[in-house]
């Protein structure tokens, strides 16, 4: 016999993902009313843009168990593609964004088909090499990219008469896209494709034996993550109206990986947390400017040593174990 309280708890448990998404959406909807400081809004917008990249990257690292140290390159192609497409070539912003994303999916396919035959360390090198190549081109091909001093004058996005030209408008734009990416990932990991990927991360041979087309699954998720990075890059370019190569070097790729690891490899919700933490960290420890790198590295090392499944998953697991143990003793 279930009491009303049990019923409510069961309902909450059953719909926990949907309800969390709903709560987060409501919070995001009213956030600009609570937080009016444009600087802080700018930070939360940056979190949304990075989260779009890191969600895709986490599917690739956490679910497919592969290493990419080159996702800043796809982010770069998205950003510079939109910048050049709308400014130099004078194209309309939204279609350019889609064309660039399609182009990135082709690049990812061309890179992924041969590269994903490679295992572990070779793949790390291939993606790292790709990032170095893209970065060098951004710096050196200054006639097109503006070189080291960057590319400015990128137009703002607009829908009809609504122009996204201030932090509050950006907020709704970037977080809408981030929430769509989040929903996409949440649904994907529970689909057959997602379960196949999880099996792949655990043991590639076993997954193949169970009928998962491992190569195709890896290429697909690589392309998906590249397209998400490209869209995030386009948004980045249109929001800041300026891009420079420094936002896309290999250290940015490493930061994306750190965000995945801190949030937990294979944890979609953890991704949001990891992205927010690593984006905000430099703001909080600004007073300790000279220790910034050391603290950054220490956080990564300590998490990997003691909670290798990431902060969110690690803490949730620890609490669950505690509860189970206390029940056992009671």
């Amino acid at each position, binding site marked *: 016999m279930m009491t009303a309280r049990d019923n409510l708890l069961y309902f909450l448990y059953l719909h926990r993902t949907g309800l969390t998404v709903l709560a987060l959406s409501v919070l995001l909807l009213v956030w600009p009313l609570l937080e009016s400081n444009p600087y802080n809004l700018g930070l939360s917008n940056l979190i949304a843009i990075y989260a779009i990249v890191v969600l895709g990257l986490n599917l690739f690292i956490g679910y497919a168990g592969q290493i990419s140290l080159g996702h800043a390159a796809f982010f770069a192609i998205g950003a510079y593609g939109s910048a050049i497409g709308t400014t130099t070539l004078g194209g309309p912003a939204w279609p350019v964004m889609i064309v660039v994303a399609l182009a990135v999916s082709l690049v990812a396919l061309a890179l992924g088909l041969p590269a994903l035959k490679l295992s572990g360390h070779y793949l790390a090198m291939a993606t790292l090499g790709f990032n170095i190549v893209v970065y060098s081109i951004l710096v*050196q091909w200054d006639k097109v990219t503006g070189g080291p001093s960057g590319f400015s004058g990128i137009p703002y996005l607009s829908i009809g008469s609504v122009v996204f030209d201030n932090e509050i408008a950006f907020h709704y734009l970037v977080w809408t896209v981030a929430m769509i990416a989040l929903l996409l990932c949440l649904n994907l990991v529970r689909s057959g494709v997602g379960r196949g990927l999880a099996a792949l991360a655990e043991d590639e041979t076993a997954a193949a034996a169970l009928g998962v087309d491992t190569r195709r699954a890896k290429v697909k998720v690589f392309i998906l993550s590249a397209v998400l990075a490209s869209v995030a890059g386009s948004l980045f370019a249109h929001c800041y109206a300026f891009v420079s190569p420094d936002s896309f070097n290999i250290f940015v790729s490493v930061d994306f990986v750190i965000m995945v690891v801190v949030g937990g490899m294979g944890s979609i919700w953890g991704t949001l947390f990891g992205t927010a933490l690593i984006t905000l960290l430099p703001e909080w420890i600004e007073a300790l400017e000279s220790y910034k*790198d050391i603290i950054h590295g220490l956080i990564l090392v300590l998490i990997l*040593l003691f909670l290798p499944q990431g902060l969110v998953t690690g803490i949730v697991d620890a609490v669950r174990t505690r509860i189970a143990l206390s029940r056992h003793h009671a």
Partner: protein
Amino acid sequence: MSGFQDLLQFVFAGVTSGAIYALIALGFCVVHNTIGIVNFAQVDFVSLGGMFLFTGLYWSGLPMALALPGAVAGVTLVGIVVERLGVRPSRSQNHLVLIFLTIGISIILRGIMKLVWGKNRMAVPPLAGEEPLRIAGAAILPQAVAILIITAIAIGLLVIFFRGTRLGLCMRAVASNQTAASVVGIPVGRVKAASFALAGGLGGLAGVLVTPITTLSYDVGVMLGLKGFAAAILGGFGSFPGAVLGGVMLGLLESLSAGYWSSAYKDVAAFVVLLLVLFVRPKGLLGK
């Protein structure tokens, strides 16, 4: 004739930087063979070598003959500390976790170097004079000659180490089968620490040799180190002859494309060729 002289000049330059890449690549391979991971802290061993040499020469006033081996020994020690405090405590067997761990350690090492030596670029004097030698019409710096000779000696010593000494044979045993090695009584933990020490020594040696040419800063090792990684991958990750071959090929590729095409795009050329080689031979040139 001047066409030939140019070529000779580019080949000299390529082999010199190739020797440096080879030393770094060997460091990557040593750790990979015993632990099975990419040790990204290797890139900072290179910077540290230069930093220790600078400190030995200018802060302690040591002569070059003492400061150079001192710097290499210092980085060897750092290698052991990194293994002891950073890698060994990890309870995870997951390679992804261990590789990201070395990235974290690398960030910490760079942070410490920035703190101790600052962000400014520094100059380290070369081993020999600065007057270029002329060989068949091509100019070659005495430092480049020193790099080639010392690298050749180091590789020779490595060969003797791996074939003739107890520790070297233990390392090869662990590389070929860790379980079997521990069954016959080889202290696997100590061998892993030794492999980090050796990687530190090789990285540090590359650092003390190359910084007189490049100028020294806390992040000088990043690009050099990643090229060393690329060289190791090109030759076949884990293969020692492959690391040397990969290093020299990458160095030549870079200097020839800088000479005959564009110096701005030499990195692009080097890495594009690397990607193409990997796509044709996914295990590198000499990989198994």
